[in-house]
């Protein structure tokens, strides 16, 4: 096996006296596509920042490509932040954001050279946002915004792409597009590490998952790691795992009630649920909207 691209050895870090992450040992090999999972406050983003050299460990060492980072960023790593942290009213175009990825290669002059613009244009074309280059970042859809920040990261020509919740705050279709794109980039040779809260998306698209809650609980392929026991240790809650046609689904385990026990009538004051507990038939228009594929999957909820 090749030498690890990223290696964390006994890493502990905290913002105050209480450590956020403790005694972390983690390896990431070239070409890997890994997801970092855990509840809020479990230290996922802290791990990313340690790998990015934005934080220095209080104990232990972070190596990138064999070099001890010591709180300095590595040129081989590029970062895609959470979209929620971006100021969408900032006066920049898509092209200006993408060009930021080339900041270390650009000269002293304030404007981008022809070569810089060409490289940015190629990257935008590759990610399908070529036509948007002159648009303000606010005027993009969620998927296009994610692609813009991916293009910025990829323009830095990294070996490792680090993404903080790239699927947060976007619809399911965009989520799938983003994850497919990441898988494509991974097949093209880029090592990827991303955090996510979406266990089902991780099960479907990410070949290696690391479950953590202040320390690493388990790591491996989703079908080995996503077990009720490991998920309970990670999230401190009951979860159920379904398998269907080689696919894995994770759901919350109801404790002693279902939502119908709690609220039989979803619209208060409007008795849309029949006395026998059944819901009224859907209108023909709604029936048409439901794709036959979706109907087939209804065994999960029944």
């Amino acid at each position, binding site marked *: 096996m090749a030498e690890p691209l990223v290696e964390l050895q006994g890493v502990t870090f905290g913002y105050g006296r209480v450590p956020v992450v403790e005694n972390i040992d983690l390896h990431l090999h070239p070409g890997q596509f890994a997801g970092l999972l855990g509840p809020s406050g479990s230290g996922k983003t802290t791990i990313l920042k340690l790998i990015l050299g934005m934080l220095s460990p209080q104990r232990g060492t972070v190596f990138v490509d064999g070099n001890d980072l010591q709180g300095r960023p590595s040129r081989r*790593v590029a970062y895609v932040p959470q979209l929620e942290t971006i100021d969408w009213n900032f006066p*920049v175009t898509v092209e200006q954001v993408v060009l*930021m990825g080339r*900041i270390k290669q650009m000269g002293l002059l304030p404007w981008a050279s022809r070569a810089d613009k060409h490289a940015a244009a190629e990257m935008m074309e590759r990610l399908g946002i070529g036509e948007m280059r002159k648009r303000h970042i606010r005027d993009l859809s969620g998927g296009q915004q994610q692609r813009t920040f991916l293009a910025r990261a990829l323009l830095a020509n990294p070996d490792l792409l680090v993404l903080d919740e790239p699927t947060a705050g976007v619809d399911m279709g965009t989520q799938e597009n983003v994850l497919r794109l990441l898988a494509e980039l991974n097949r093209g040779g880029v090592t990827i590490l991303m955090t996510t809260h979406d266990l089902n998306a991780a099960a479907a698209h990410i070949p290696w998952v690391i479950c953590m809650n202040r320390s690493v609980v388990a790591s491996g392929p989703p079908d080995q790691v996503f077990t009720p026991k490991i998920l309970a240790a990670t999230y401190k809650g009951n979860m159920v795992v379904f398998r269907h046609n080689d696919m894995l689904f994770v759901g919350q385990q109801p404790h002693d009630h279902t939502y119908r026990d709690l609220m039989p009538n979803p619209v208060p004051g409007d008795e849309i649920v029949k006395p026998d507990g059944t819901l009224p038939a859907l209108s023909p228009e709604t029936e048409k909207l439901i794709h036959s594929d979706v109907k087939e999957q209804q065994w999960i909820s029944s």
Partner: protein
Amino acid sequence: MDQLLTPFQFEFFRYGFIAALLVGALCGMIGVYIVLRGMSYIGHGLSHAIFGGAVASYVLGWNFYLGAGLWGFVAALLINQTTRRYRIGADAAIGIITTASFAIGVAIISRYRRFTTNFDAALFGNVLGVTLNDILIIAAVTVFTLAIIFFLYKQLLFITFDREVASSYGVRVEWIDALFAFVLASAIIVSMQTLGVTLIAAALVIPPIVTRMLTDSFSHMMVGSVLIGALTAALGMYLSFQLDVASGAMIVLVGAFLFVLALALREVRRIRRPRLESELLVPITARDLLE
């Protein structure tokens, strides 16, 4: 026509006019970064902090520009560090550090009452006192600032847009922050005589805000803010002579007028803009689907 040009016959006005023009452009240029970083209050706070430094350097017999400059630079660095290390909001850090520094100045004044008149000028601006030497210093700071912004344009843009991420792309954020604090402190010190401590904040904030309302482009905002800053200052100076009003106050009033004008223009644009299809759609509820 001769009457319109009358003020330019006086040397003090010519000096004051040139100083105001440069200060307006300088504050407009730096103001873009201040406003986009969400630190609009820093101009107000830092000018008050520097007032403490100006009084202290007067008492200690130091050169005004050196003493007040060093004081302002240290105050700006302290604000930056307090905000980052102790997770105190920028507004609170500015409030504590700059008012404490201003209080030092007031305490010294109340102890040595003899020079209160000079500091009235520092508080409210006194364009009559602008000398050729002052103009040269303002010009030097403007050229220095222009050079810093020219050569660090991309880095400053990245830091202003996405500070945390910029460091992971190899931008030396701490170093550039310190340099920017120095530039800001220098700009405020050279602006004190023309605008006065109490009105500098407006010169830093109004031009970029006015331009921001008219454009979505960073480079246009930069150029526009410099032009509006210079225009505001020049027009304010001219009107202050004609109407016999304090120069700093008049410059700020012209800026405020342009702000109202920009607001009105934006409102007109908004009304004239054709509505997007998505704005015309009526949201569908679950109830609609069930019926």
